[in-house]
C-alpha cells in the first residue's frame, strides 16, 4: 500500500475531492499547511512598516491507497489540481507497511 501526500492550492480541494470520489476513493485526510517554494509570498503592511510573508497557504491531502491504483490516482490529482500557475504544489508517494481500521480492527487493503 502507498501513502499519497499531495500539497495543492486550497481552492482546488473541492474539485480534487470530487474527482477522487468519482474514481471511488472514499477516504482521505486533509491538513492546512503553509508552503514555501518558487511561488514567493507577498509583502504586507502594518502601521507603516512593510514586511515579507514567506509562506503561502496550501492544503495537504493524505490518501492511503492500494498499490495497483496508486498511479492512476496520482495522475488524477495532478491533472485536477493543475492550474498551470506557479505554486500548484507537489505529490509525494511513500510506502505504507500496515493499515488498521480503528472501528473494526481490520487490517491491510480492506482497511482502506
Amino acid at each position, binding site marked *: 500500500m502507498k501513502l499519497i501526500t499531495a500539497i495543492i492550492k*486550497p*481552492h482546488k480541494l473541492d474539485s480534487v475531492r470530487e474527482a477522487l470520489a468519482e474514481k471511488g476513493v472514499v477516504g482521505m485526510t486533509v491538513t*492546512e499547511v503553509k508552503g514555501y517554494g518558487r511561488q514567493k509570498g*507577498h*509583502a*504586507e*503592511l*502594518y502601521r507603516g512598516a*512593510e514586511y515579507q510573508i514567506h509562506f503561502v*497557504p496550501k492544503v495537504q491531502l493524505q490518501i492511503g491507497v492500494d498499490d495497483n491504483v496508486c498511479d492512476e490516482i496520482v495522475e488524477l490529482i495532478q491533472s485536477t489540481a493543475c492550474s498551470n500557475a506557479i505554486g500548484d504544489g507537489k505529490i509525494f508517494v511513500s510506502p505504507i507497511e500496515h493499515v488498521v481500521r480503528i472501528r473494526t480492527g481490520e487490517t491491510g487493503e480492506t482497511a482502506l
Partner: protein
Amino acid sequence: MVSDLSYALDTFYFLVSGALVMWMAAGFAMLEAGLVRAKNTAEILTKNVVLFALSCVMFLLMGYSIMYPGENTGWIPNFGFGIGAENTAEAALSGAEDAPYYSMRSDFFFQVVFVATAMSIVSGAVAERMKLWTFLAFVIPMTAVIYPVQGYWHWGGGPLKELGFSDFAGSGVVHMCGAAAALAAVLQLGARKGKYNKNGSANAIPGCNLPLATLGTFILWMGWFGFNGGSELKVSDVGEANAVAQVFVNTNMAACGGAIAALLMSRAYFKKADLTMVLNGVLAGLVAITADPLSPSAEASVLIGAVGGALVFVSILMVDKFKVDDPVGAISVHGVVGIWGLIAVTFNNSEATLSAQLIGIAAIFGFVFVASSLVWFILDKTMGLRVSEEDEYDGVDISECGLEAYPEFSKR
C-alpha cells in the same frame, strides 16, 4: 414657548440621539465584518471607517445645505454650501411662534450621522469584490448630492412633503435609498466568484465571525433608539415626551417581532434556528417601524416588525434566485422591508395615504437607482468596479489594504 432650559434639553436630546446614531456606524462595521470571509475583513472595516469620515465631510460641505434649503423649489433644490450660522440666543428666546428650539449644530450632527447610515448599507452589499477606491469615490456624489436631493424632497420640505408622503425617520429616505444605490451597484458589479453554480443554484458563503455580526446587530438596535427617538425632534413638553417614549417602545417591540418571526420561519423551513436569519429579522423589524414608530400601539409594532422579519426571510431566498449576490442581505433588509414600512404607515397613521406612499417610494427608489447606476457606470469605465479574479480569490484585504485582519489565526 422656548426657554433657555427647553432649548437646552431639546439640544441635548438631539446630541444624545446623534451620538447613538453615530454608534450605528460601529454596528454596521461589526455586522459586515462578521458576515464576510476572514480574507475580506480588513477591507470592509476600512471601508466602514472611511465612508463615515467622507460622508460627514461631504455633507458638511454641500449635502446639508442641499437637503435643507429652507424653501420648496420643486424637485430640484437650491444648491449651496456649508451649514449656516448657529441660532442666536435672542432668536431662540424671542417668543416667536417659529423661534428655533434647538441648536442648529445639533441638528447638523443628528443629520450627518444619518447620511453615513445610508452609505453603510451600500458597503455591505458590494462586499468581497469591489475595489475599495472605487467605492470611496462613489461616496462623494452619493453623500454630497444624491442622498441630499431626495432627502430634501421629503424632510427638506420639498415636493414629497407637499404630496403628503410620510416617512418619520427614514425607512425610505435613508434605508430604501441606501438599498437602491446598493442594488444599482450589485447589478453592475456581478456576483462573487463561486457564489452561483453553472446550474443556477447558489452556494452559501458563510460569514467568518458570528459573534461580531451579533454584536453589530445589538449596536444597531441600540443606535436605533437615537435614530427613531431623535426623529421626533423635540422632547420638551408632556406631549412630546410621551411621543418620544412611544417611539422608543415601538422601535424595541418591532425589533422583537422581527426576531421572533424570522426565528419561526427558520424553524418552519429548516427545523433549525438560523442565527443569521434572526439577526436579519431584528434589523428588518427596525427598518419596518422606522417609517412610523409613533402612531402604532406597542402591540401593532410587534406585528409590523414581525411582517418585516417574515418578509426578509422570503426576500433573501428570492434575491438569491435572481442571482443578485448581496453578502449581508442589505437589499432585502433595507430595501424590501423599507418599502413594507412605508406602506404600513397607512395602517395606523390616518394622515398617510397609500397613493402618496407609493409615489414617494417610486420617486426615491427611481431617482436613487438611476442616479447611482449612472455614477457606478462612470466609475466602471474609469476606475473599474471590480478587483481582479486573483485578488478576489486571495481576498481583498491583501490587494486593497495590504494587511490581514486576523494574521495569526489559521484559516480553512
